[in-house]
Each structure stands twice: as C-alpha cells, then as structure tokens.
C-alpha cells in the first residue's frame, strides 16, 4: 500500500493574527496563521468583505507571528516563530503574490522544545529589534537594520537567557526612539525546586522584567524587575514616545495593573457579568488584547475569557499616568487574536468557530455602561485587588457584524454519507463548541449567492448582456432569445423591457455584441443587424436559402457559419463599418460551434478562430490579413464538440509571456477539454480532460475575481478559474442551467445571468477556493459523536458540555436563589454569551435526533442528574429484530482530573415516529465510562473503561454475555467485520481480537508494536486498520496475511492465538503507512466521492481540515511522485524553515505516503526550476502538472 495525501480543505482555525501594510500600499492587510499554513487576508473596506489573497502551506508549526516595519519605511515584514529552531522573516511580494523569505537564521534544534525559542515573539514598535523566546530559559534578540541598498539586515543574536525561569508572556515596550525594551512575565523556580517543605514554592513570585537592548554596546541587559500577581497571564504594551506614556498593562486574574519603570502602579478591576449563577470563586482572565492608535489618542480593547470586550482608556500627562478606566464594550466570540483596522473595522480570529469581521459603529463613549477608574480602588499591601465590579451584558451596541470567515474548528466527528440521494455524497460534520456548535452538511461545490430570480413568459433559449459603448463600465442590456422572438431588457434600478433599441424582436437571436466604439450587433438566422449609436441600422442578409447557424464575435471581428459549413468573416473598419472579407471557407462538415480569441485592450485584431465541426474535430484558423481563414492546426475529439471558449489566463506555464491562451472544448458527451493554444504557431498541446455530467457541455466566458473564468454547464454548472497559480475546476452548488452570460452592474460587479427553465436568474460566486459549501444546523452543547439510523435515515447526536448548567439545573438553581421564572424572558442569547458556567464536575448533556432531509431537529432529550453522554451506537437486537435501538453510553458526576465518576450507564432507546424520536427502554449501570459502543451480531459490544463486554437486551436492563478484561487502559474505538473485532485503546494503539462463538469469549490475538494515543480509527478491510492519534499522526496497520488466515481457520481459537508476549498479545501487526498530518484526526472513512470513482480514505481534523489519502495504483506513479517530492523538498524548502521530511516524520519516520500538497507546490516554482525538475524526471513541465492535477481530479 502506498498513499498520496491531499488536503481538500485546509484547517481554518486561526492561532495567530497580525495586522500590517504587507503589500507596501496604504491598504491594511491581515496575516493569519492556521498552525501549518500562513494566509494573507485583504479586507475590502468599502464592501466590508474579507478576501483571501494568498494561502501557503509551510509544513511546520507556526507558534507565533509578528509584524514590524523599519523606521521610515511603508512596508511591514512578517516574523515567524515556529518549531524549526529558526527565526524567519518574510516579505509579501504583491506582484508575484508570494511570500518571500528574506532571512532565515538558525539558533537551535527543531521541535516544540522547552528551551528552544519560537514560542514568543516581541518586536520593538519602531522596528529596530525582535525578541524570540522559549517557554524556559532562552531568549534571543536580533537587531534589524537596513544596508546601503535599503535591504533588511539582521544582526547576530544577542542572548538574554535566564536559566530556571519559566516565561509566561513577552511583548515589546513602546519607548519611542530610546533603547528598545522587551517586557517579559517570568517565574524563577530555582528555590522551589530545592525546598522540600513547599514554602519556597508558595513564596515564588511572578516577575515583570524589562530587558533593554543597548544599541550602543550591542548588548542586552535586565534593566528592571518587579513582582506582580502570581495569577498574571498577559502583558499589553501601552503606546509610548510621542504617542503615550509608555509602560505595560499587566493582566492578572480579576484585575489589570499599569506598570512602568519609575511610574506609579495603578490598578483597576475587570468588570464581571451580572449573573445570579456566577461562581464567585472563579477568577476572570484576559485572553487577548489590542491597542488602537488614533491621531491624538489611543485606546485598548481587552477581551475576557467569556468573550466580553472591554475598552480601556488611559489618562496621562506627559509620561505620568493619572488614571486608567475600563468599561464594558461589547461581546464577541473568544478570540485567539484581535486586530483593529485604521478604517474602523475589528477582526476577531475566534479560537473556536467562525471568524468575524466587525465594523465599529461607535466607540462606546456616550452610553450609560458604568465605567470604572483606577482612582476608585485601593489595592492590598501586596498589590493585589479583590474588589468585584459588575456590568450587565447586552447585545452588540458598538460593533456591527459585516463578514464572517467560515471555520469548522473544532471538528469533532464526521461521516461521509448520501442521506439525501444526491449525485455526490455529503460530509456530515460536527463542529463548534457549546452554544455555537453546529452540524454542518458539506456539499462539494462553490457557494452561490442568488441575487434575483424573475419568471419569463416562455422558455428562453439564450441570454446575453451587453454594454452600449466600449467605455461603459456596466452592462446596459440583457437580451433574451426565445425560439421565435427576442426580448431586450434594460438594466437600471430595476430591470425593464425596452422596445426602441433597434433589435429585431420577431426573430430568435444567435449572438449579441457591442461592436467598435458605440455600435451594437445582433446576429439572427437570416442576417446581421449593425445598430449604430444614432439607431441607424445596416443589415447584412444571409445568401438566399441559407441561414446563419453559429457566430463568434469580439468587439472588432465577427465570424459566422452558414448552413453547410461555410464561414464568413467580417471586420470593423476605420469608419466603424462592418466590412466583409473576400475570403470564405468551406468546412469539411457542419459547424457546431465557433469561438474567437478575446480581444486584448488596444488591439484591433486577434489571430485565432476555433471551429468545431460535426466530424468530431476542432480546427484552429488564422484571422491574419495575409492568410485569412487558413487552417493552422486540428484536434480530433471523442465526440461532437458542443461549445468552444478561448480565454487568456495569467500564469507562467508558457515561458516568456504572462498569459496562456486556453481553448476550452465542451463535448456533447459531457466531457470538458482544456487545451493550451500556442500563441505563435496556433498549435494545440497539453490537453486536460474531465467528465462533468451526463448533458452536453456549454461554455461561457466570465470574469471572476478580476480574472477570466469559464462557466461550463452540464447536468450541473462548473466553474474553471485560476487561483494562486493553479487552474481550479469546481462544481457550483446550484441547479442545472441552460445558458449563461456574465453580468456587471453597480450592485453586482461580477455576477452571472443565467436561464433555468423559464426563469432568469442572477447570481454571484464569492468564496473561491472553498470547495465545500456548508449548511449549518444549530446545536445546543458541544457535539461529541453521531450515528446514523440506516433504516430511517435519521441522525442521532450526543452533546455534552463540562462546567455548564443544564437547562434543568439552571432553573432549579434560579428558583433556589429566589428568581422568578418571568425574568428569564430577557435572557441573553447563549449563542453570543455562552451558557452559564458552572463548577468543574458539572455537566450539561443531551441526545438529539436530526432529520437530514428537512435539516431540522425532530427530538431532543436532556440528560438529568449530572449525566453526560460519551458514546453512541445504532443497533438492532436479535431478540427484537423488528426495531431499531440507540445505545448511549453516559456517566454521572465525571471529573476530568483526577478521573472519577459516580457511575456509568448504558441507556437503551427505541426509535419511534419513523426514526424521528426516541423512547427510553432502560438504563444499565456500569462501573466505568463507556467510551465506545458498537452493534455486534445482534448484540451490543461495549468498551467500558478497560473492559470489553457483549450485552444482550433484557427486560429490565442489559444482560452481560461475555467479557474481556485484558485491554491496557481505556477502550475508545471499536470496529468489527464478521467475528473480528478491532479495538482502539486510548494509549496503546490498535488491538485485534476475535470472538470465538463456541467458547463465548473474546480473545485478543494481535496488537501494535508502538504505543499510540488513538483519537479515531477505521477498518479499511478485514485485515487493515487506519487510525489517527492525538499528536497529529496518521497510520495504517495490517495483520499479516498468513496470521489472519490461521486465526480464522482455527475455530477453537486457542492454538493460534498463543500466549501473550511481553505483556501484550502474541502477535504484532505490520505498519503499512505513517504520516504526520499536523492536526489531530477526528474521523476517518473509506469512501469514494465521485460516483464509481476510486476508493480512498477521507479524514477530518480537529481544526477543521478535510483531506484524503489516495492509494497509488502503479509502481510508476509511486516512483514518479516520490522523486518529484524529493526534488520539491530541495527546490522549494518550506517557508517556516522546517525540514519537510522531518516534519512529516515528526514522531515516527514517514512511511508509504507521498505528500501531495508538497507536490502541488510545483505550480508555484519558477519556469527554470520547473524545467530543471522536469528534465530530471524525463518529462515536460506540462506533463508533470497534468499528472499532479489528475491525482486531484481522480479524488474529487
């Protein structure tokens, strides 16, 4: 087995976000890190939309990001702290749209180690130095400067190490142009490590330390150190120099302190939510903060772990701070990063769930929210503050949500199913946490936003849009052709019919074109109508008895095909008249389609005409004056061509020119071909083929995201577009369309107008590159697992939240506290504000049934008595074969650390109401948490702690039938085929067991050689298991063939099972593949996306990624991709400085897997490098690109 890994959707959780002018223009942009991927986002401040400009896989772990700008410069650089043991400085090149590595300096070993820097980054606000720190001991300071040619230089590292010191946070202090200072929160454990009484540990202090970089001496010194609260977790630098008083805010549990050398300490409490259910013992942490500087003032936004934003203002005179004030601002989701744009927007990179982009409506200056000042609070002698102040949370008042970026993180479980009988299966995924969680149904296809639908009197055959003059910015007319008439609609505030346009309304239309400077052209079967701006009409009549069948136009050239296959060519002459060329050409068969090259701006003529004929050919003809309509080349096809489109796409495939001319051919058998048309010779080469659907393919040229794109209509619409040096071909999630045209108006810059049945539809496509579009169904608590009832096709989900009041508990507690029930009417929306937090060991949990057809919840059951659900299975019992049952494994009073519970339970429910409801049959107490349940031969197989049991259905409870206690820790996954059971242990990887019916016992006969902390697993075939672990590895284990047979033939089971060996099973499985994905896998499934396509392994990961492993079919392919991967490692080393091979072999060396994402970066190489690698592989660059593309197409 040899696998090819491809990411279908990259993980979209964000762990770091920074703001800067990375393009070097005045536009502010965001750079975010998705752990192993770095992405540039460009917010459009006029529309409020955030666009992804560039996303690059760095094959490493990005732990910290920082932006800096050299003094006087206008462009920001990006610094990356990663697991590579290197500091990386990147620059964004907006012309090539790439991140360029400016500096890479090695300082230590790779890996996320305790003493190797990379975890913390702090930059001097004036861009003179950067500090990179580790969790313990090491801190390095690099001086940044520029050389004579104004290039960025980086000095050798200066050490600011302090051993036996744990670092909590680092930030750069704003000191203007004085020597750069970095502030760190540190704890020295030297004393605590030596003192057996624990006294020293209790007295250990957390220190705020200033490290000063002496630029004159080139040396770092500890300048100042002061004890702060032990429960401090974060620092926020206050603007300094000419902008403010300098210094830092130390965020501790419950309060914020202002500190600076030689300055008075000021303390203000963090306001808490007014909530009767509040746990007063629990401290409140600040989790993120951002400073916003305006012309003459600044303010800070801090966010608490509940998601509440606080506005902090600092009143100062000169360098002296008089007062700090804090007030509640608004509540958004808890952020991993906050960024405020100068144009008045707030970007919230949520730690879980969708990321939000807000616009500031106001700055919370003049509302009645209470404001608290540091002058009103007196601290204790030790500097702490134990006052609690409150605010009343309310819906958004200052912020306005303008855009959202989808994030499926955390993705806890997923399955690939086709429950709604569509062409392709859907992915059902459990996403999100607490009240923000959703079940998302993902369908393969780009998301389409419908703008308008209007019915027409009859079924139209075609539609066009046109401008009136060459200078028009927007389309003015929509022309709709019916089988015997033509309708002209004008585009304005509304779309209305117009009649005095010069168009012939009593005939169907073949083509419409804005011609020359200000004329219009209507081509209809009997002739051509040339409508001048003054409504003067010139007609060209088709010769007697013959009709025009096809036409191709651009704004200067017109070609028509007459019945019988004759081509006539026209050009616009100097005076704006349409003049017929004296050359005509008879084609070998009937012309079925025509296409003319798009006219580049400023040109009067293009060279190529493509003609498709019913003898299964496409010919390229010349339109040059010297050899008009001379054939240049020809391509034979497998079917009659239905439609042709030539477009120029910008890329670097053809050396020396920035665009490549593609000829797209849609065939009547549903196949789309894309061929490169050589610009000089007109030769056709490098054909890519793809089957789109059962209907013949019609093609239309569009403009999408500023680039030309092709819309292909078959049994579903597809879009071929170019993004980040790759041509993508994705289906649209939309109904089948008959005909389409691009549509540009003031309201809708890049739209499409299309015909479906008798309706005219206008729609736009926005989220390019997102191959899945999602339909969310809201849930109440964090979803854990789900199963599908195969008979009724309903979905059962279990949801559990720790530290949360369940609805019942909340009611009870409120009544205890004497609150009336009617006060709940003004209850806060939990989706924004979260559920009321309870104490550890308290749970809220429910069981939910969803009908996937209607996408609605049909049944919920909230668990009582502090029970939480952990596992679920659908089954039918042999004793009651007619009914479907749901088994839910729960436990009561679970605490996480130390692990404890009062009792576990297995609930048995019977499906009622056609599978849309549940009815409790009985509850069976068990001694441990049942983490895995499975239907097994008409009975229930349950992993209860480390015990594996078979239960049968009894009258009052489940009946224990068989038990095995030999598993090491805790059973988390179970699978079976026949009598073979595959068990995943939480720490000890996969175990193979077999159920011996004769003896009624389960015997474990094989296990893994290595320990693995299993997070998910799937049985690929009878002998093979794929699994994922909590460190982000993927592996495949296989039972040796001979052993597998022996076990099955030996009915008694005892002989070949053998005696245990070294505390494990007698036999060991073979490792077939091993690969570090970089994110925790949460589900695995063997599936096939394309109907009748190849089977592959689909995985989902915790941070919202979806990927696949495709098995190679030939030895040649394996060799090819392995060699390509090897060359790619050399020619394009990962951006974050991590060695690719060692990243993919993070814990165990890579085995039997090729990294397809690495191979796809081939497209990003320069032409020279592409050719160099291609030479090594004895192929052309185009062949390599085709092979890479084929791998992806085969999958999806």
């Amino acid at each position, binding site marked *: 087995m040899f696998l090819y890994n491809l990411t279908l959707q990259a993980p979209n*959780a964000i*762990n770091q976000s920074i703001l800067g002018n990375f393009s070097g223009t005045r536009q502010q942009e965001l750079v975010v890190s998705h*752990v192993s991927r770095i992405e540039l986002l460009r917010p459009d401040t006029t529309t409020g939309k955030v666009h992804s400009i560039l996303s690059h896989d760095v094959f490493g*772990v990005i*732990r910290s990001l920082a932006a800096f700008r050299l003094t006087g410069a206008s462009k920001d650089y990006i610094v990356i702290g990663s*697991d590579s043991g290197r500091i990386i400085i990147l620059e964004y090149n907006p012309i090539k749209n790439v991140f360029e590595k400016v500096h890479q300096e090695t300082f230590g070993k790779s*890996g*996320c*180690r*305790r*003493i190797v820097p*990379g*975890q913390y980054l702090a930059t001097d606000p004036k861009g003179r130095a950067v500090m990179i720190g*580790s*969790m*313990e*001991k090491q801190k390095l300071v690099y001086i940044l400067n520029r050389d004579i040619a104004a290039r960025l230089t980086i000095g050798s590292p200066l050490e600011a190490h302090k*051993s036996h010191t*744990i670092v*909590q946070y680092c930030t750069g202090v704003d000191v203007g142009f004085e020597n750069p200072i970095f502030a760190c929160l540190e704890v020295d*454990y030297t004393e*605590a*490590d*030596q*003192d*057996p*009484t*624990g006294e020293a*540990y209790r007295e*250990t202090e957390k220190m705020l330390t200033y490290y000063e970089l002496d630029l004159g001496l080139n040396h770092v010194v500890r300048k100042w150190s002061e004890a702060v609260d032990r429960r401090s*977790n*974060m620092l926020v630098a206050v603007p300094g120099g000419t902008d403010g008083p300098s210094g830092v805010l130390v965020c501790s549990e419950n309060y914020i302190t202002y500190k600076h050398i030689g300055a008075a300490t000021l303390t203000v409490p963090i306001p808490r939510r007014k909530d009767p259910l509040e746990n007063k013992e629990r401290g409140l*942490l600040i*989790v*993120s903060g951002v400073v916003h500087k305006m012309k003459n003032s600044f303010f800070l936004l801090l966010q608490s*772990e509940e998601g509440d934003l606080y506005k902090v203002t600092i009143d100062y005179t000169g360098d002296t701070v008089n007062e700090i004030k804090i007030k509640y601002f608004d509540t958004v989701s*808890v952020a*991993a990063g906050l960024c405020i744009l100068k144009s008045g927007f707030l970007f919230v990179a949520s*730690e*879980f769930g969708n990321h939000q982009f807000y616009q500031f409506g106001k700055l919370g200056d003049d509302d009645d929210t209470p404001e608290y000042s540091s002058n009103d609070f007196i601290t204790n002698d030790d500097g702490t503050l134990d006052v609690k102040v409150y605010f009343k949370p309310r819906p958004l008042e200052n912020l306005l949500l303008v855009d959202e970026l989808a994030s499926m*993180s*955390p993705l*806890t479980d997923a399955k690939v199913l086709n429950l709604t009988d569509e062409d392709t299966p859907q992915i059902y995924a459990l996403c999100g*946490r*607490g009240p923000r969680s959703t079940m998302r149904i993902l369908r393969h296809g780009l998301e389409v936003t419908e703008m308008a639908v209007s019915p027409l009197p009859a079924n139209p055959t075609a539609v066009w849009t046109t401008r009136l003059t060459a200078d028009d910015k927007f389309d003015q007319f929509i022309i709709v052709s019916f089988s015997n008439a033509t309708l002209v609609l004008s585009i304005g505030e509304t779309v209305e019919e117009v009649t005095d346009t010069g168009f012939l309304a009593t005939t169907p239309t073949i083509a419409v074109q804005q011609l020359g400077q200000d004329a219009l052209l209507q081509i209809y079967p009997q002739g051509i109508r040339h409508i001048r701006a003054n409504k003067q009409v010139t007609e060209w009549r088709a010769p007697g008895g013959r009709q025009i069948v096809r036409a191709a136009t651009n704004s200067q050239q017109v070609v028509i095909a007459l019945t019988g296959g004759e081509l006539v060519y026209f050009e616009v002459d100097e005076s704006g008249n349409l003049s017929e060329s004296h050359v005509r050409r008879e084609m070998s068969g009937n012309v079925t389609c025509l296409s003319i090259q798009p006219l580049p701006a400023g040109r009067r003529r293009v060279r190529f005409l493509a003609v498709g004929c019913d003898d299964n050919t496409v010919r390229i003809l010349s339109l040059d004056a010297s050899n008009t309509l001379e054939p240049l080349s020809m391509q034979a096809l497998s079917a009659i061509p239905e439609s042709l489109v030539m477009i120029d796409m910008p890329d670097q495939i053809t050396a020396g020119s920035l665009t490549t001319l593609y000829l797209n051919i849609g065939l009547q058998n549903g196949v789309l071909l894309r061929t490169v048309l050589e610009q000089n010779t007109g030769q056709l080469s490098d054909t890519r083929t793809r089957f789109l659907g059962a209907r013949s393919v019609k093609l239309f040229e569009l403009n999408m995201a500023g680039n030309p794109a092709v819309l292909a209509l078959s049994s579903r619409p597809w879009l071929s577009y170019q993004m980040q040096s790759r041509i993508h071909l994705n289906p649209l999630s939309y109904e089948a369309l008959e005909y389409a045209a691009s549509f540009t108006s003031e309201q809708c810059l890049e739209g499409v107008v299309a015909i479906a049945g008798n309706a005219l539809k206008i729609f736009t496509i926005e989220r390019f590159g997102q191959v899945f579009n999602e339909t969310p169904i809201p849930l109440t608590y*964090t979803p854990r697992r789900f199963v599908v009832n195969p008979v009724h096709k309903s979905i059962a989900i279990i949801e559990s*939240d*720790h*530290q*949360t009041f369940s609805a019942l508990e909340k009611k009870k507690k409120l009544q205890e506290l004497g609150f009336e029930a009617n006060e709940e009417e003004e209850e806060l929306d939990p989706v924004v504000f979260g559920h009321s937090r309870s104490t*550890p060991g308290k749970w809220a949990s429910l069981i939910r049934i969803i009908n996937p057809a209607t996408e609605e919840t049909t049944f919920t059951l909230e668990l009582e008595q502090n029970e939480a659900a952990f596992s679920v299975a659908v089954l039918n019992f042999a004793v009651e074969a007619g009914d479907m049952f749901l088994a839910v494994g729960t436990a009561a009073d679970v605490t*996480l650390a130390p692990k404890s519970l009062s009792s576990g339970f297995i609930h048995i429910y019977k499906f009622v109401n056609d599978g849309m409801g549940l009815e409790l049959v009985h509850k069976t107490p068990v001694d441990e948490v049942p983490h895995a349940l499975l239907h097994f031969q008409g009975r229930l197989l349950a992993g209860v702690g480390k015990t594996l049991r078979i239960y049968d259905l009894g009258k009052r409870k489940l009946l224990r039938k068989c038990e095995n206690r030999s598993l090491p820790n805790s059973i988390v996954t179970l699978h079976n085929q026949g009598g073979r059971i595959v068990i995943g242990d939480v720490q000890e990887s996969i175990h193979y067991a077999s159920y011996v019916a004769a003896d009624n016992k389960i015997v474990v006969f094989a296990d893994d050689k290595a320990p693995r902390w299993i997070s998910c697993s799937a049985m690929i075939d009878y002998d093979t298991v794929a699994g994922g672990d*909590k*460190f*982000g590895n993927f592996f495949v284990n296989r039972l040796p063939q001979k052993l597998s047979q022996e076990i099955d033939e030996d009915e008694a089971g005892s002989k070949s099972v053998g005696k245990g060996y070294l505390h494990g099973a007698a036999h060991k499985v073979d490792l077939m593949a091993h690969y570090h994905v*970089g994110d*925790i896998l949460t589900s695995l499934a063997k599936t096939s996306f394309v109907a009748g396509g190849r089977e592959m392994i689909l995985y989902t*990961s*915790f*941070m919202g990624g979806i990927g696949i492993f495709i098995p190679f079919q030939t030895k040649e392919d394996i060799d090819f991709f392995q060699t390509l991967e090897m060359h790619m490692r050399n020619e394009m080393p990962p951006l974050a400085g991590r060695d690719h091979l060692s990243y993919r072999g993070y814990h165990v060396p890579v085995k039997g897997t090729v990294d397809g994402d690495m191979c796809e970066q081939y497209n990003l190489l320069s032409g020279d490098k592409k050719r160099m690698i291609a030479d090594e592989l004895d192929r052309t660059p185009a062949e390599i690109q085709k092979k890479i593309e084929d791998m992806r197409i085969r999958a999806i």
Partner: protein
Amino acid sequence: MDRANLNSQLEHLQSKYVGTGHADTSKYEWGVNQARDTYASYVGHYPMMSYFALAENESIARVKFNITEKMVQPCGPPPERKD
C-alpha cells in the same frame, strides 16, 4: 578520549540543554524534567491546546495559563534530602 574530556563534554551538555541526565539524577529530577518538557510541548502544539480546551470547556488562553503555571512545580515539592 580520556575521562576528563568526557566529563567536561557532559557538563557542557548539561549546562546547554536543560534536563540532560547525569549519574546521580534522582527520580524526582527526572520526573520534573519530563513533565516540564511535556508541558512545553503541549503549549507549542496549538491543536493539542485546543483539544484540551474543548475537553475542559475552557478558553485556550486559560489552558495555556494553567499549563505554564504547572511547569513551575509539576510534581509537587522535592523529596527530603537524605544526607
């Protein structure tokens, strides 16, 4: 390679890489180093932190804070020295 050189090399390693063992490493020291290494690795791997945060239903920043705090004394106070 003579013994003195070997020792000096070892000492160099021990001073450069925190947690390098020596002949007299006690069980406590070994455990403390292992725990600190583990916690540092947790903090470095963001997916792991979010995994914990989801299980505990806490914010990631709170989980990071707790883990960093634990690094100060991960295995309780050191045992009494037997001199």
